[in-house]
C-alpha cells in the first residue's frame, strides 16, 4: 500500500534531485565542490533519459517489435549468429565500446574546468551518443547485421559507402597513433612503468599458449592467472626501479619507446590472434571492468572534493594542453565520452548478430553508451580532484611552460594555480616517479588522480603501487586497441588491394600480411613519431585530429540514420537524429576551419608551419628543435590537408543524404529500403 502510494512520486523525485544536483554543479563557484554532486547529477540524468527518452525513441521512432525474429534467430548458426541473453550481449557490447577515449578525453578537457566537459558528457551522450548507438544497432539488426559501410552504400549510394570506408580507415590510423602517444608519454623516463608495460607482452603470450594448447576454453582460469601475473608485474616493476643497474635498462626517452611501440604493433599484427591479441583482450577486459567498478566504489565512499574550478580562463583558447577556445574544442576533445562514431562500427558489427529480441536494443544500444558516459564522468572526477596547479604541471608540455621545473611552476602559478617544485617533487616520490612535470597525454595525470582516490579508499601507503597499477591498466587496453586496430586496418587494406590483385586479398598469404601490416603500421607510426618529437607534446596536434575524425564518423552514421528515417516515411521524427547530426556538422566544420585557417600558431596547422619555417630560416631555433623542424613543418601541412579531406568527406555524405531525402520526399526513385522481411519470432526468452 505504502509502495503504491510512493510510486507516482518516484520519477518527479528523481527529476527534482537531478535538477538540484545539476544546479549545484553548474552554479557553484569559489570553493571546491564535492564529487558526489556530479555523480548524483549524472545518475539522475541517465535514469530519466533511459526511462523516458530512450523508451519513447524505441516505441515511437524505431517502433521496436518484440514479435519480430532477429537475424540472430533467423540465421542462427551457433557461431556468428546466436540469440544471446541481453545481459551477456550488454557485457560484450560495453567491453567492445569502452576504450581509453572516455578516460583520456575528459582528462584533457579538464583544462577548461570541470563544468563544460561534465555538461557535454551528460547532454551529448543523452541526445547524441546514446541515440546514435541505439539507432545504428536497430538499423543494422533490421538489415541482417550489415556494417555501417554496407548500410551507407545500400541506403544512400556508393558515395556514402565509400565515405564510410575512408572515414573508418582514417580514424583507425589516427586513433592508434594518438593512443600510442599516450602510452609512450606514460612510459617516458619511468623505469617502473616501462618494465610493467613490457612485462604485459610475455604475460599475454603465456596466457595465449595456456588457453590455446594447455587448457583450451578455460577462459576464467587463464584470465585469473593473467591478472595475478599482471599484479606481480606491477610489484616487480617497483623492485626493478630500486635496482641501479636494472633501472637503467628501462629508463628511456620518448623516441626509443615509440620505436618499441611501432615494432610491437607490427609484430602483434602478424602474429596469430591467439598468441597476443586475444589473451591481451581478455586481460584488459577483466582489468577494465574491475578497475572501473573499484573507482566508482571508491568515489562514492570517499566523496572527494573537486579542486579544479568550474570554468578556467583557458576557455579563451590560450590553454597549455591544447590550443583552441571552448567552442568547438571541448566537444572535439571529449569525443568518445559523449558521442563516438567508432561505436557505430561496433553497433553494426558483432552485436547485431547476438540480439535475441528487438526489445533488447534499447538496453544494449542506449544503456551501454550511458555506462560509458558514466566512465567519462569518473575520469573527469579523477582528473579534477587534483590541485589545478598540479594538474597543469603534469599536463602542460615543456615547450609551453619551460623545460626547467622552476620555470614551469612560475608560469603555472602566474595563471593563479599555485604549485611549487617541492610539492611536485614530493608527489613524484610518492608515485615512484623521478618527475611528473610535462608528463603529457592525459594518462599520468589520470593515474595520479586514480592513485590518490584508491590510496585514500584502500591504502594510502601504497600510492606508488596504485599509480603504476593505473598506468598498467591504461596501457594494457590501449595496446589491445592498438593490436586490434592495426589488424582491422590490415584486413581493410587487403580487401581494397584484393580488388587490384586477388592474391593480396588472401588474409593468410604471408607476403600480403607482411606488406599490408607494414603499410598500416607505417601510417600510424609516422604520426606517432611526429607526436613524440613535437616539443609541445604531440597531444596538441593529434588529439584534435582524432576528435574531428571520430565526430565525422558519427556524423556519417547519423546521416545514414536520418536518410533511412526519411525514406521510411518517419519525417516527423527525423529531428531525433537530425539535431545531433546538425550539431556535429557545426562543431566538426568549425574545428576544421579553425585548425586550417587560424592565425594562432597553437591552433592553425598552416600558421604553425609558417611560424616554424620563418624561425628556421632566421636561424633562431635551438639546435635540437632545428633538427626536427622540417619534419614538424611537413607534418603540420599534412595535418591541414587531412583535416580538409575529413571535412570534405563529411559534407559529401551530408549533401548526398540531403539529396536522397529530397528525392524521397518528392516521390522520386531512391534506393529501396534494405530491411529484412518480417518473420514472427519463435523464441520465448533467452
Amino acid at each position: 500500500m505504502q509502495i503504491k502510494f510512493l510510486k507516482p512520486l518516484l520519477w518527479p523525485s528523481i527529476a527534482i534531485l537531478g535538477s538540484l544536483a545539476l544546479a549545484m554543479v553548474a552554479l557553484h563557484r569559489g570553493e571546491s565542490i564535492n564529487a558526489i554532486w556530479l555523480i548524483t547529477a549524472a545518475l539522475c540524468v541517465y535514469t530519466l533519459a533511459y526511462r523516458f527518452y530512450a523508451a519513447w525513441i524505441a516505441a515511437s521512432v524505431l517502433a521496436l517489435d518484440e514479435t519480430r525474429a532477429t537475424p540472430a534467430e533467423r540465421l542462427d548458426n551457433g557461431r556468428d549468429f546466436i540469440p544471446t541473453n541481453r545481459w551477456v550481449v550488454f557485457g560484450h557490447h560495453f567491453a567492445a565500446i569502452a576504450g581509453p577515449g572516455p578516460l583520456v578525453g575528459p582528462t584533457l578537457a579538464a583544462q577548461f574546468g570541470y563544468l563544460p566537459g561534465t555538461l557535454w558528457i551528460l547532454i551529448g551522450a543523452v541526445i547524441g551518443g546514446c541515440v546514435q548507438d541505439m539507432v545504428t544497432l536497430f538499423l543494422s539488426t533490421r538489415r541482417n547485421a550489415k556494417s555501417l559501410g554496407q548500410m551507407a552504400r545500400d541506403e544512400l549510394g556508393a558515395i556514402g559507402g565509400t565515405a564510410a570506408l575512408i572515414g573508418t580507415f582514417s580514424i583507425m590510423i589516427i586513433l592508434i597513433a594518438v593512443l600510442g602517444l599516450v602510452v609512450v608519454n606514460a612510459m617516458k623516463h619511468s623505469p617502473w612503468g616501462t618494465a610493467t608495460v613490457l612485462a604485459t607482452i610475455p604475460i599475454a603470450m603465456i596466457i595465449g599458449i595456456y588457453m590455446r594448447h594447455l587448457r583450451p576454453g578455460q577462459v576464467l582460469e587463464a584470465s585469473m592467472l593473467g591478472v595475478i601475473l599482471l599484479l606481480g608485474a606491477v610489484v616487480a616493476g617497483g623492485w626493478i626501479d630500486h635496482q641501479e643497474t636494472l633501472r637503467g635498462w628501462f629508463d628511456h626517452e620518448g623516441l626509443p619507446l615509440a620505436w618499441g611501440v611501432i615494432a610491437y604493433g607490427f609484430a602483434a599484427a602478424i602474429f596469430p590472434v591467439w598468441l597476443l591479441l586475444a589473451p591481451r583482450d581478455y586481460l584488459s577486459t577483466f582489468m577494465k571492468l574491475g578497475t572501473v567498478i573499484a573507482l566508482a566504489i571508491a568515489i562514492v565512499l570517499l566523496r572527494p572534493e573537486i579542486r579544479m574550478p568550474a570554468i578556467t580562463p583557458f576557455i579563451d583558447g590560450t590553454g597549455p594542453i591544447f590550443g583552441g577556445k571552448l567552442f568547438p574544442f571541448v566537444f572535439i576533445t571529449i569525443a568518445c565520452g559523449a558521442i563516438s562514431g567508432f561505436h557505430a562500427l561496433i553497433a553494426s558489427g558483432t552485436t547485431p548478430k547476438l540480439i535475441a529480441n528487438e526489445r533488447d536494443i534499447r538496453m544494449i544500444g542506449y544503456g551501454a553508451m550511458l555506462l560509458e558516459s558514466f566512465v567519462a564522468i569518473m575520469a573527469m572526477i579523477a582528473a579534477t580532484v587534483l590541485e589545478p596547479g598540479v594538474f597543469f604541471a603534469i599536463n602542460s608540455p615543456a615547450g609551453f611552460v619551460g623545460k626547467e621545473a622552476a620555470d614551469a611552476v612560475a608560469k603555472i602559478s602566474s595563471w593563479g594555480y599555485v604549485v611549487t617544485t617541492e610539492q611536485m617533487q614530493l608527489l613524484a616520490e610518492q608515485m615512484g616517479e623521478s618527475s611528473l612535470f610535462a608528463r603529457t597525454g592525459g594518462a599520468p595525470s589520470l593515474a595520479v588522480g586514480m592513485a590518490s582516490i584508491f590510496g585514500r579508499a584502500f591504502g594510502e601507503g601504497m600510492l606508488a603501487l596504485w599509480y603504476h597499477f593505473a598506468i598498467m591498466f591504461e596501457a594494457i587496453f590501449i595496446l589491445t586497441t592498438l593490436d586490434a586496430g592495426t589488424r582491422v586496418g590490415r584486413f581493410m587494406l587487403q580487401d581494397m588491394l584484393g580488388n587490384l590483385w586477388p592474391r593480396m586479398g588472401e588474409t593468410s598469404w604471408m607476403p600480403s600480411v607482411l606488406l599490408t601490416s607494414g603499410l598500416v603500421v607505417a601510417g600510424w607510426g609516422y604520426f606517432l613519431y611526429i607526436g613524440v618529437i613535437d616539443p609541445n607534446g604531440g597531444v596538441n596536434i593529434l588529439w584534435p585530429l582524432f576528435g574531428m575524425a571520430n565526430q565525422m564518423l558519427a556524423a556519417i552514421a547519423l546521416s545514414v540514420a536520418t536518410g533511412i528515417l526519411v525514406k521510411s516515411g518517419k519525417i516527423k521524427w527525423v529531428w531525433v537524429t537530425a539535431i545531433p547530426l546538425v550539431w556535429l556538422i557545426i562543431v566538426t566544420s568549425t574545428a576544421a576551419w579553425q585548425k586550417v585557417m587560424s592565425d594562432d600558431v597553437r591552433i592553425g596547422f598552416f600558421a604553425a608551419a609558417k611560424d616554424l619555417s620563418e624561425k628556421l630560416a632566421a636561424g633562431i631555433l635551438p639546435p635540437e628543435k632545428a633538427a626536427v623542424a622540417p619534419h614538424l613543418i611537413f607534418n603540420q601541412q599534412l595535418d591541414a590537408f587531412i583535416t580538409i579531406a575529413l571535412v570534405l568527406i563529411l559534407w559529401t555524405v551530408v549533401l548526398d543524404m540531403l539529396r536522397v531525402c529530397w528525392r524521397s520526399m518528392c516521390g522520386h526513385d531512391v534506393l529501396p529500403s534494405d530491411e529484412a522481411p518480417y518473420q514472427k519470432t519463435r523464441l520465448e526468452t533467452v
Partner: protein
Amino acid sequence: MRLLKRGLQNIQVLWQWIRRLSGQDAYERYLLHFYAHQADHLTEVASSTEHGGSEACCITQEKKVLPLTKEEFYKQWQDRKWRGINRCC
C-alpha cells in the same frame, strides 16, 4: 540449512553468469546448438551404382558430420572473433 542451500544455489547461478559473460561456456552452447539442429548437419553424398553403362543412377547417402572438438572449436572461435572491428577507442 535452507539458507545455506539457497546461498549455494545463488553462488551457482552467479558462477553460470560469469561463465556465460566470459565465454567459458561457449563450447557447451555450441554442442547444444549442434545437437538441436542435428538434421542440418547431415550431408548428402551422391554416388553412381553398379549398373554402369549409360544409365546414370544415383544413390544418396547420408554422411553424419561430427561436432568440432573443444580445441578445434576454440581455435575457430578465437580466429573468427578478431576478423571484424571489435574494440573501440
